């Protein structure tokens, strides 16, 4: 009887220590790791998606040129068309230098935004802009890598809207995060950022 109690006490002690160790790991060590991972350099990463012609694309598709990448969805009536329209205007303003960057619109609504839908959509904007979509898992992965927030919001008719980050990420040719162009950025500021990105040397 007494021996049994001792065993229970010992087991509880071991379990208690395990819990403390786990908590220590989660609370003290993990955030440091995450903090390190959340550094500026960690935005972006490998992906596999399909473009608006149906062809498979990866991070290597964009490699070699700095790029502007924007996450949205075609169901979006205001922020996305306005942003892509603004970007189209800035691309025009860049003139021949526009070819020195890649421009991508990635959907956060892959269920509705098929390559065909994406193609018709991006076709309405500057021809430099490509549309990328993929499986929900592929989109989740690239969104995590770019720290893009998106969330489905149900509507009364059984459909849904998407909340999503509304900024253009500017990335260098070697996939390092440079800066963002927030929604409704002034033309002069946005153009200065794009021109700066073009002249930023790869590390």
């Amino acid at each position, binding site marked *: 009887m007494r021996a049994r109690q001792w065993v229970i006490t010992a087991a509880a002690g071991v379990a208690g220590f395990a819990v403390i160790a786990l908590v220590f790991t989660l609370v003290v060590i993990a955030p440091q790791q995450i903090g390190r991972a959340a550094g500026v350099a960690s935005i972006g990463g490998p992906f596999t998606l399909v473009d608006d012609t149906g062809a498979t694309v990866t991070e290597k598709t964009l490699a070699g040129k700095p790029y502007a990448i924007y996450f949205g969805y*075609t*169901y*979006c009536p*205001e922020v996305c*068309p306005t942003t892509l329209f603004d970007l189209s*205007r800035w691309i025009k303003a860049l003139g021949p230098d526009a070819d020195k960057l890649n421009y991508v619109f990635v959907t956060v609504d892959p269920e509705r935004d098929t390559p065909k839908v994406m193609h018709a959509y991006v076709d*309405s904007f500057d021809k430099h802009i490509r549309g990328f979509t993929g499986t929900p898992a592929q989109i989740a992965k690239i969104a995590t890598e770019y720290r893009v927030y998106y969330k489905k919001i149900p509507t009364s008719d059984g459909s849904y809207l*998407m909340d999503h980050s*509304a900024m253009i990420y500017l990335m260098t040719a070697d996939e390092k995060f440079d800066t963002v162009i927030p929604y409704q950025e002034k033309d*002069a500021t946005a153009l200065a950022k794009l021109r700066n990105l073009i002249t930023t040397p790869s590390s």
Partner: protein
Amino acid sequence: MRFLSKFAMLAILTAVAPAAFAQAGGTSTITVEQPWARATPAGAITGAVYMTLTNKTKDQDRLTAASSDVAAKVQIHQMSVVNGVMKMRQLVDGLAIPAGGSVTLKPGGYHVMLIGLKKQLIAGQTLPLTLTFAKAGNVSITVPIQAIGATQAGKGGMGGMEGMQGNESGGMGNMEMK
């Protein structure tokens, strides 16, 4: 909760429907000024309509629903960009128009959202829209369509469509370089 609000709205609509039709056409207690819609990219199935609604009565009114021949359904939405995140919400209970006051639906705030577009919205054209108010009833308007980059109604609202033909050849509608 949602069921109750729908039920309440239905009850209100049913109660005011006869009065609604009586008031439609010029004598409405709600005036709609400077309506405009944003042209849509090809393939887009949603569009947004903006306007200023003024309530001339001493009682609060409410925009409860809308419909248009160009869309399968129409909803009333509020959008915002907070900390870089765009949020859009359906106003299930409609949009209140204060007594003797007005509400402006504009980019970055409220809009009437066209869902399931039956045709692309082309700058320079118009679309029909019927707004349903709890008290003022139905108000039918013609909405000019402006360029994708437009941020406000053209000068003079219904007129002022010059120079807003699409986004080709550097056409920027009334979107000025900021």
